[in-house]
């Protein structure tokens, strides 16, 4: 029997409507935890983070966790130090690696292997990278912010390679050919033509990687230590970070719990800010996808 395809309310169209409704329900289900966690972080964190502003961001962490009072300054400094150093290591190396993959290696066997392994490397658990850094660095040189930075850099490297290569793919071949026609060498073409053309996309990909790294705890767990005082040195002495303070906070004490929520709020604000900045860069992208 041939169904009447023009009929308005058949079971076929109802099924389609039902499925569309389920998709919308899925969006709601996705949004609920995000809204719930933001609500908790803001409602419980804002009090401790903002009371006596700016004490929370500038004071040291109380040495005894049941003691009332503000202070996450050293952790904020530590997070910025560790993440900053990791960015300085991973982004240049990642961009160079991607330049090799797209501009030199292309579809050669070696490039394909590296591309494949970079994708596999994005799946290596962060705790494994943490222990790796412990074995390679901390056992020899002790706790420092730099050890944590190495762990984060290992996690960021494949992500930066992946996003940068995607951006290089969007640069039109004609741009490269025009540069060659003017007599520029390959390296000069890449540095002065290809990379600037892809820059907004590269920056946005890198920022997303940095945002994700800034919130990581596991790679820092065995490398950074648990200082409660300010430490601005990159290579020496134990340091700390916001994520570490949250993980190690003694939730039995209300004062420590309040500081943990305050630290969570600071960390979420930091990562969201970077993510949104990254998106602004993407929307200004000179090259259309």
């Amino acid at each position, binding site marked *: 029997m041939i169904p009447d395809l023009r009929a308005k309310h058949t079971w076929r169209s109802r099924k*389609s409507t039902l499925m569309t409704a389920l998709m919308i329900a899925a*969006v709601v289900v996705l949004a609920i935890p995000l809204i719930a966690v933001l609500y908790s972080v803001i409602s419980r964190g804002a009090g401790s983070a903002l009371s006596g502003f700016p004490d929370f961001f500038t004071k040291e962490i109380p040495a005894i966790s049941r003691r009332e009072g503000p202070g996450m300054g050293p952790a904020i400094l530590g997070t910025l130090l560790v993440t900053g150093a990791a960015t300085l290591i991973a982004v240049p190396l990642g961009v160079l*690696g991607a330049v090799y993959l797209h501009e030199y290696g292309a579809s050669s066997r070696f490039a394909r292997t590296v591309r494949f392994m970079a994708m596999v490397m994005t*799946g*290596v*658990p962060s705790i494994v990278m943490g222990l790796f850094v412990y074995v390679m660095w901390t056992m020899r040189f002790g706790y420092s912010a730099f050890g944590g930075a190495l762990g984060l850099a290992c996690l960021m490297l494949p992500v930066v390679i992946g996003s940068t290569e995607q951006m290089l793919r969007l640069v039109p071949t004609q741009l490269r050919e025009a540069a060659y026609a003017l007599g520029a060498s390959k390296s000069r073409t890449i540095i002065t033509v290809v990379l600037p053309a892809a820059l907004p996309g590269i920056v946005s990909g890198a920022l997303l990687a940095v945002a994700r790294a800034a919130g990581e705890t596991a790679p820092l*767990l065995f490398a950074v230590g648990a200082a409660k005082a300010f430490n601005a040195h990159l290579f020496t002495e134990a340091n700390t970070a916001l994520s570490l303070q949250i*993980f190690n906070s003694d939730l039995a004490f209300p004062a420590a719990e309040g500081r943990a929520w305050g630290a969570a709020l600071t960390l979420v604000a930091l990562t969201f800010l970077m993510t949104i900045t990254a998106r602004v860069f993407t929307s200004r992208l000179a090259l259309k996808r």
Partner: protein
Amino acid sequence: MQLFELRGRSHHADTAFRWTTIIAATLVLVILGLVAASMTQRALPVLQKMGPEFLTSSKWSAAEDHYGALAFIFGTLYTALIALVLAVPVSLGVALFITQVAPRWLKRPMIYLIDLCAVVPSVVWGLWGVLVLSQHFGLGRSFATAGVILAVMITPIITSLAREVIETTPTTDKEAAIALGATRWEMITATVLPHSKGGLVGAVMLGLGRAMGETIAAALVIGSALGQLTVNPFASGNSMPAVIANEWGEADDLHKSALIALAVALFVLTIIVNLIATWIVQRGRRT
């Protein structure tokens, strides 16, 4: 004159730059190799002492120097499975919504939303899991709580991979289905899903790998119970990364070696899952 200079100078610089990029690319292989080699070496004392029992025994006791990881391997797989069961339908629904249903103006905000979900730090999910989810929803610290938190964490990852895959469906296929009188859902089952099947499986596998390796959130909510080999989702348990994070602080030398051995096992497990996933995804991209 200017051009001549460009060419004359650049020969050595060109080679140097090329080699710099090759070294940077090789670093990926070097790091992966070093991870495998250095950690296996540190894990050897325990692996030699325990032999195959490391994987088959579920007794984990630092006091007796007996290290069997079976219960933790089980916990890792079990929580990851719970997470997948919860995350896959939601991810697929959201990905289909963004690509097939949402009006154009809504797409970008939706993608932002997923990005923000993906960037909430794992330790913040863990804190929320311990103090809100496990206390106010009666789940306690258990496999179920860990599964829910992991699901929340991998949903954005699976969604954005699935979205990319689904968007490669040729518009002509979809238009052909609509022209034949298919409803939106029939169009999806007839063209979008068959086209993206491989890529979607790959996306789910990558999500699985992520769920198995997720440490901090699991460490906070799973309950840290030893030797739990039960399918009761409301029992406290433990997973491999959670054990490493929670026990490292008070571990002596052999105990540390056992935890590193656990990390090696986790590394191997996730590498296998990721190799399969990457292979599926790349095969899907080529066709």
